[in-house]
């Protein structure tokens, strides 16, 4: 040993190399994050710049004119809202209740495990396959014809597994000890679920449902097969232009039509449609964040 003072926190070769690695890694990871953000910003910027000439409130409220080469997107906007709300009215209650059964009631046996597997796999079925099923089941077999109801039901079937999965995740986040404490004092499963599990998982459940809304709004294949049309004549600004057995226009479908099916459309129109679709989806997501923040503020443990 040397006679000098003992240096406890001094510089060592190992310490230097450790800091070098740390710095390099941090840089590399930050660069990856930037690389991920850039295309997203570029996409939005690209859309908005091209859409700019057509973007105004009239574009939202006006109906398409001159063979869709002018005017707005009102019928498609309302159609999308109809389809999403219709789908949600079916899939949200069904999915949430099914998830409650599977999570709170079902015993862990092979039968329920296989149902669980089926749900997970169903979530991975491509939407075009759901479209074909919807065509066979709702349009023909149930004789709804090409209609909003057939399209909404198809979308509902498609979103069900995802809602079930996200609801189960929310229910699972409630600690098991709460359930056991309730069972120990002789509460039934429903009393336990209602008093303790649901109030503390509702924010997660709602978030899952709202995120499904934004996914549903963008789907094209299922509604194309079952109830969405290129063009439907409605009044400007009419809030209730469709009946459940009518066909309707939809934003995603309209975008496809403008981009590929109609010659001579001004460039700004499809881009503006895309911006509205994106705006709808993003504002629904924002709504889910607000709902989550509000409900989390009331979280109780």
């Amino acid at each position, binding site marked *: 040993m040397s006679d000098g003072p003992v240096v406890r926190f001094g510089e060592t070769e190992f310490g230097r190399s450790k800091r070098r690695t740390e710095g390099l890694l941090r840089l590399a990871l930050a660069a990856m994050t930037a690389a991920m953000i850039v295309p997203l910003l570029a996409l939005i910027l690209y859309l908005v710049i091209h859409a700019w000439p057509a973007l105004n409130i009239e574009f939202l409220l006006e109906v398409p004119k001159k063979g869709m080469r002018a005017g707005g997107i009102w019928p498609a906007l309302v159609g999308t809202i109809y389809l999403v709300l219709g789908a949600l009215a079916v899939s949200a209650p069904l999915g949430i209740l099914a998830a409650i059964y599977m999570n709170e009631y079902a*015993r*862990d*046996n092979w039968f329920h495990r296989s149902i669980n597997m089926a749900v997970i796999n169903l979530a991975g079925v491509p939407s075009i396959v759901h479209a074909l099923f919807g065509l066979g089941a709702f349009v023909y077999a149930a004789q709804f014809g090409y209609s909003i109801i057939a399209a909404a039901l198809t979308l509902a079937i498609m979103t069900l597994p995802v809602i079930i999965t996200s609801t189960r995740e929310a229910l699972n986040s409630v600690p098991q*000890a*709460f359930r*056991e*404490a*309730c*069972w*120990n*004092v*002789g*509460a*039934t499963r429903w*009393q336990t679920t209602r*008093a*303790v599990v649901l*109030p*503390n998982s509702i924010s997660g459940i709602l978030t899952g449902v709202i995120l499904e809304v934004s996914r549903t709004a963008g789907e094209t294949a299922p509604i194309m097969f079952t109830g969405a049309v290129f063009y439907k004549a409605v009044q400007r600004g009419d809030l209730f232009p469709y009946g459940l057995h009518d066909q309707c226009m939809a934003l995603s479908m309209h975008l496809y039509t403008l981009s590929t099916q109609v010659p001579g459309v001004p460039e700004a129109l499809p881009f503006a449609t895309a911006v509205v679709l994106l705006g709808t989806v993003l504002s629904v997501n924002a709504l889910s964040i607000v709902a989550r923040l509000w409900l989390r503020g009331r979280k*109780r*443990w």
Partner: protein
Amino acid sequence: MSAPDTTIEVSDLRLAYGGREVLHGISFDVRRHEIFGIIGPAQSGKSSFLKCLNRTIELVADTSVSGTIRLDGQDIRRSGDVFGLRRRIGMVAPLPVGLPLSIYDNVAFAPRAAGLKARGALDEIVERCLRQAALWDEVKDRLTSLGTALSGGQQQRLTIARALSHDPEVLCLDEFSIAIDPVTTMRIEDVLKELRRDITIVLVTNLVQQARRLADRTMFLLKGEIVELGPTGVIFSDTPAERRTFEYVRGMFG
């Protein structure tokens, strides 16, 4: 058949998780108004026995139970109303569980689950149980605040108040002191000494000195078998019947 002073009568109770048997046919009686201590190292089947007693074991997947447990002479597995059975047994878990409800609702939860709605009766139960659990003076001015916001020791007393709220004949405590401070532990032990006048208490603990302080009789459970059951004075004496009991209570193993 069962002696009049017997509350719980266990005979040849076997329990298996999957194929692994954890209780190997144990038989014993718990007398009325005694504090019955169950000691033993971890994995001895102490908590599993409590789960069998209030039949929450049936909520655990892949278990099989045989043998009988009688509560006041009645086979618990023949009692059709499992929820009613659970209300006859108060259960306190190792970790304090304040439900994410108000303090009032925490205690009123069980009577409400049993169908009681009258506000006056509920008020009465809440006050009585919180007093019994030595928590009333600390929370009487904030009954509407959250049970989960209480300290650990307070939550454990809240858990005891909740376990008393359905007027049980037996109060079971499963290592109630592992997550709380010594002062609160002593307070709760005083509470238990008060309560034994009204109800039977089953005290599962891995603190052997706690059993020594409180229990009238103590059972030493090891790996799913009863090593020895006798008056606490004998179990903790220099001459219990079994060598292993002597070694365990002296801290030589376990």
